[in-house]
């Protein structure tokens, strides 16, 4: 009789089991279903964060899912929310799946010529999960808007917001800003918890910054009633609906304008200065302490490019006889210090370099009433170390499955499996070469 398996062996057996893989894949299916339904009311970004980028799903809005399925047509259940933390999120499930496939599909799998194709395919799927993790943790994506003649070397995130504090310095001096990430203040909404606030401190500042009354989509309104308790300098924060009145669709995250109240408390005297921070404000709020002024604002997180881009010229082609754009082209100059490099960015033809890709994403021909005749180009900037990993992974999966198929076929046909596999791989490689050469 064999000795009972040790606890680590049992754990390994469990982690590499088919049963665990089936449960994880089942839960991923449920997440995809719920996340897709909630997206209708919460938007893509919020839904992705809650279901696919989380360790645990903090709550499930049954009411939103119900309405997304149009069941409220038959029976309106209202706002039903499951405030439970039991459903694992996409991040945790993918981590478990990675471990499961690593142990089961690479380590514990019976290794023989017959299984080589399956092992290759498992490796490629692990590589794809790793690509997802690298993208989640390290990829940066945002927008760089330039007018003709303008130069910049920073792009702004689509979704990440920050609060920045910058000391006013004489022109020409190096400028720095203290940055507060959005995860530190987006819980400070006072919709259900009046007065919820957080204090941010830094040794270089003569004040502590208190942030309160955060709203995801709002605008400042003039307070006609002087007795309003939440008015700051004659304005209050008016929350706005996230439904676009023109289309009745949920506004995209990029169209939302966050706002909050900032209170700068003097560290010595405790004296307070209050201001409203608004994402779409024309200028930051200024707080003054003695002779020093500080600019405080809420906005998109900025990322620095390793080079600067100058927009020299924009061109727009229209479909003949229509006003519909056919092609936008931007002639730009890449500036690396004194070195200049002329490049052209056009639709579906990005400029790549130093790990970054710049895609033409929007265009303004300056004819709008507030554009002043100035042409603008918007470039989507992507920095993703694992940009091509999913493609590579798909190719390896295909090769692995092809090898496995040829192995099984050659067994049935009584061929020499190695000759069959080698010939198949040669044919596939030749096909790729011809396709690449022709395309």
């Amino acid at each position, binding site marked *: 009789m064999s000795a009972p398996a040790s606890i680590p062996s049992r754990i390994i057996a469990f982690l590499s089991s088919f049963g665990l893989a089936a449960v994880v894949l089942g839960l991923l299916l449920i997440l995809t279903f719920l996340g897709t339904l909630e997206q209708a009311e919460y938007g893509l970004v919020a839904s992705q964060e809650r279901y696919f980028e989380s360790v645990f799903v903090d709550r499930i809005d049954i009411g939103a899912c119900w309405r997304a399925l149009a069941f409220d047509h038959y029976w309106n259940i209202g706002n039903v929310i499951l405030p439970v933390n039991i459903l694992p999120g996409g991040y945790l499930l993918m981590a478990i799946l990675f471990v499961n496939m690593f142990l089961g599909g690479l380590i514990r799998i019976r290794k023989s010529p017959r299984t080589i194709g399956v092992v290759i395919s498992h490796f490629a799927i692990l590589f794809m999960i790793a690509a997802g993790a690298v993208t989640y943790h390290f990829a940066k994506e945002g927008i760089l808007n330039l007018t003709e003649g303008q130069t910049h070397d920073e792009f702004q995130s689509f979704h990440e917001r920050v609060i920045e504090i910058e000391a006013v310095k004489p022109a020409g001096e190096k400028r720095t800003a203290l940055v507060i990430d959005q995860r530190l203040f987006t819980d400070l909404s006072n919709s259900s918890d009046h007065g919820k606030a957080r204090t941010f401190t830094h040794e270089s500042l003569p004040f502590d910054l208190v942030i309160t009354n955060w709203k995801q989509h709002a605008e400042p309104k003039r307070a006609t009633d002087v007795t309003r308790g939440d008015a700051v300098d004659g304005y209050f924060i008016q929350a706005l609906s996230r439904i676009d009145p023109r289309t009745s669709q949920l506004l995209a995250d990029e169209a939302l304008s966050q706002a909050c109240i900032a209170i700068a408390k003097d560290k010595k005297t405790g004296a307070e200065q209050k201001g409203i921070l608004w994402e779409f404000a024309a200028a930051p709020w200024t707080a003054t302490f003695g002779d020093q*002024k500080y600019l405080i604002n809420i906005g998109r997180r900025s990322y620095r490019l390793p080079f600067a881009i100058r927009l020299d010229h924009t061109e727009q082609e229209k479909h003949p006889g229509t006003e519909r754009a056919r092609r936008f082209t931007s002639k730009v100059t890449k500036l690396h210090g004194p070195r200049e490099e002329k490049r052209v960015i056009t639709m579906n033809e990005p400029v790549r370099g130093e790990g970054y890709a710049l895609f033409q994403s929007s265009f303004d021909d300056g004819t709008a009433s507030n554009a002043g005749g100035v042409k603008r180009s918007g470039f989507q900037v992507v920095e993703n170390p694992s940009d091509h990993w999913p493609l590579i992974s798909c190719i390896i999966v295909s090769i692995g499955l092809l090898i496995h198929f040829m192995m099984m076929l050659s067994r049935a046909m009584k061929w020499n499996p190695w000759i069959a596999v080698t010939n198949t791989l040669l044919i596939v490689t030749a096909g790729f070469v011809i396709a690449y050469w022709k395309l």
Partner: protein
Amino acid sequence: MMSPHSSKAATKLAFFSFIGLTMALFSCKRLEEREPITESRELSQYARKQLVDIRSADRFYDQEAPAEDPNAPQQHPLVWVTPEGWSEKPSSQMRLIDFSFGPNGEGECYLSALPGPAGGLAANINRWRSQIGASSLTDEEIDKLPRKNFLGGPAHFVSVDGSFKGMGDAASAKQDYRLLGLIHQASELTLFIKMTGPKALIEENAAKFDAFCQSVQFRKKAEKIPSH
């Protein structure tokens, strides 16, 4: 094929990696009432200039807000940074911003604005060129002129050397002068910045001209928020 020994080692590695990963996932820090600011960044040299002490009405595009002080004199529609060594003269209807510089004030730089296209780009550039005794440019040549960023958009940049007579006659022309200019055509008005003076003096002040042009902003007309 993997040996049993290496297979065991890999299994152990995977097991401990999983335990570590799980611990990392559950070690999320709870937010406190007081949080230290731990992140900072250096701003780009191309970052928007610092807009200081802008009142709430202007920050929030509230055009109907009452003026801060109804009895206060009307503010200049533009804000700018005066270059070091330049003397500011009172503005007039024709010269919204007016400077003189140089040992005897022989260099001058001013900003003016005219409604609409103001006769067109070519006419204005060639008017300037005629004032300094240079021949007119064709439309193709004008199209090839360099552009400089001004008020968030491109402006045609003119640099001409010659004998400067200004609005006077050829007899009163000042020799060996240089004219630098920017013409910015917006939808409702055309803005001109023109700097003239002895060539050597203008060469010395060319960087200050650029800095001044970059510093000019509308006081109340906020910068357009980029659309996403």
